[in-house]
């Protein structure tokens, strides 16, 4: 295995099996081709947080400098605000039971800017489309078309997802921050769906690469119809997955280091989907004492988690 690591280490185009662009194929005409595929599949080492999906803007150095100078004033103001808030406000020590603290209330269009939508057609890996817009009732509407067709490129086996995810929160000067939800134990959503089930994703990315894909999932069932529904989901019910695979060794979610929140649609039913969201909030429910909903068993060695 050691030799495999070395080979994939100096080769730049390490993600071969899911990137569709033609230039990858051109560069692959080397003797290491198959070995590279193997090393990609059988190693857990990650090069970057995006898993090889390049979504960055390409701008010139001059523009980059210009933008940087513009941002200095904005960031300084932000820093000032942060210092002021640190001096003025007391930290929250207890959450009032029965009260919902809103994370996002989708009553204004600018709240939608805090979210990013992705679907498999963005990376040429499918034909689904999605968008997040204001609905006619003045709420956020996550809608689109789910398409299960698989592009005929010989690499992709399954297709069909659409997702919205909050952008990473940050402090001034682009320092990354995390949400601290440790006061609460329940996630509350007021939604109006279409009878499909959606997936709630709470990312808890850590510093090391093995934690970059840690996402805690739970299902959001929707009733469908014109009536609003309020879903309260305790954090204890969330299950740990990595790259969409449920993990054998589960642990309870740590709500004090949350990096992203997202909702995705991928229930294998092709067609249009509509999810209207009024708010996403947090609640402390003192009657919910469960820490983790899933029991773990003691098994023989090398059966679980390998």
């Amino acid at each position, binding site marked *: 295995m050691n030799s495999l690591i070395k080979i994939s280490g100096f080769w730049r185009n390490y993600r071969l099996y899911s990137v569709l662009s033609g230039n990858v194929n051109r560069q692959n005409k080397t003797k290491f081709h*198959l*070995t590279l595929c*193997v090393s990609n599949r059988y190693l857990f080492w990650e090069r970057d947080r995006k898993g090889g999906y390049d*979504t960055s*803007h390409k701008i010139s150095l001059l523009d980059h400098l210009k933008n940087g100078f513009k941002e200095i004033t904005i960031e300084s103001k932000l820093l000032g605000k942060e210092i002021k808030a640190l001096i003025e406000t007391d930290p929250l020590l207890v959450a009032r039971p029965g009260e919902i603290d809103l994370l996002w209330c989708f009553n204004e269009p600018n709240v939608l800017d805090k979210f990013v939508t*992705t679907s498999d057609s*963005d990376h040429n890996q499918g034909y689904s489309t999605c968008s997040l817009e204001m609905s006619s009732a003045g709420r956020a509407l996550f809608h689109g078309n789910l398409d299960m067709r698989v592009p005929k490129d010989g690499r992709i086996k399954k297709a069909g997802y659409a997702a919205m995810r909050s952008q990473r929160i940050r402090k001034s000067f682009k320092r990354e921050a995390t949400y601290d939800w440790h006061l609460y134990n329940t996630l509350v959503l007021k939604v109006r769906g279409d*009878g499909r089930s959606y997936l709630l994703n709470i990312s808890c990315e850590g510093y090391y690469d093995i934690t970059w894909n840690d996402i805690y999932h739970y299902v959001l*069932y929707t009733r469908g119809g014109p009536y609003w529904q309020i879903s309260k989901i305790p954090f204890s019910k969330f299950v740990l997955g990595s790259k969409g695979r449920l993990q054998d060794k589960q642990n309870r979610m740590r709500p004090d280091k949350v990096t992203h929140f997202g909702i995705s649609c991928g229930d294998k039913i092709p067609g249009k989907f509509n999810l209207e969201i009024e708010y996403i909030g947090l609640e402390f429910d003192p009657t919910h004492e469960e820490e983790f909903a899933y029991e773990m068993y003691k098994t023989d060695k090398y059966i679980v988690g390998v």
Partner: protein
Amino acid sequence: MAARILKTFLRARPSIITIKRFESNEKNVTLYDPFVNKPQKDKKTYLEAIKIFETRDTRRRGHVEFIYAALARMKEFGVHKDLEAYKALVDVLPKGRFIPTNIFQAEFMHYPKQQQCAVDLLEQMEDNGVMPDSEMEQMLLNIFGRRGIPLRKFWRMMYWMPKFKNLSPWLLPEKLPEDTLELAKMAIQRITSVDPEVKLDVWQTEEIEASLDKTWVVSAQSEVQKVLLAEQPSDIALVVKGPFSVYMKDQVVTYFTLIGKTRPEPKDDKDIDDVSDLQKPLGIPGFIGSTKIPSVKCSVHEQDDGTIVAVCATGTSSRDSLLSWIRLLEKYGNPLLSEIPVIFTLSAPSSDIAVQETQPAKQEETTKVNT
């Protein structure tokens, strides 16, 4: 001699050594496909084809390719949700042969192609929502032994699948009714389950003489909604909105709503601790005392984008059938509908749009910005 052997080993490219183990992992194109020429594609012929393969050759050559070919054709034969068919496929694998006999075999994935094939089979079961049973476990144990990777997949499935199987608060039966009327009834029942008082009615449009479409209407309305409709001022029009869709598993039911005027938000600035002026309760609208209901929101039907007065699904979802629905509502307990104007704000019926089945020839270059 030893030095020469060592030299060849050292000179060998690592790729050659490491590929050997994995290159057979790729699925190969099957040459023989017994499923193509079946005249009738159902469960019986599917199982027959598997039986023919089993009896044709005692060595069962190419059984992995056969299983992959059979898995790919399950939907065609309508057995993709059938546990029995999956069991028949697992049964194709020989018993005892693939069980590792020493720790090296157990550690280094004994018979990798066969194990991967069984894992893919289990994954297809998982994707189709088919839960394996203990007989399947016994079969896999006899084939791959306790250390086999398919067994791990099986145990994972048996841990997680029962946990999520009946989790939905609006649980649907395993098999949805084929009849569209029954399905529409289930859908309307589901979306109006917020209010347990809602009564479901199935009417025929034949009752209205002027109707063109002879079909059924599933309408849902509660007593509170009738009162809300009666409260509608006659100069403000009611609006029929739709078509909206609700998913019942993979079936889509189209429904329409009748929306009344938006009632104002409740404004409560009373001091609730002040007991000097207690009011007599007004009664329950529609049941006790005055039928007038307070001007504030008090039921689930009053939402800020309008008051939902009735919900329906019709057999054809056409404009004419909706007109008949309004007339039927008028006939059964909502006489005010004859005076209030009703606006139909319907988008074009979805059935008129042709669905493009083939893959688009060229994908537009979409440059979507993501962070």
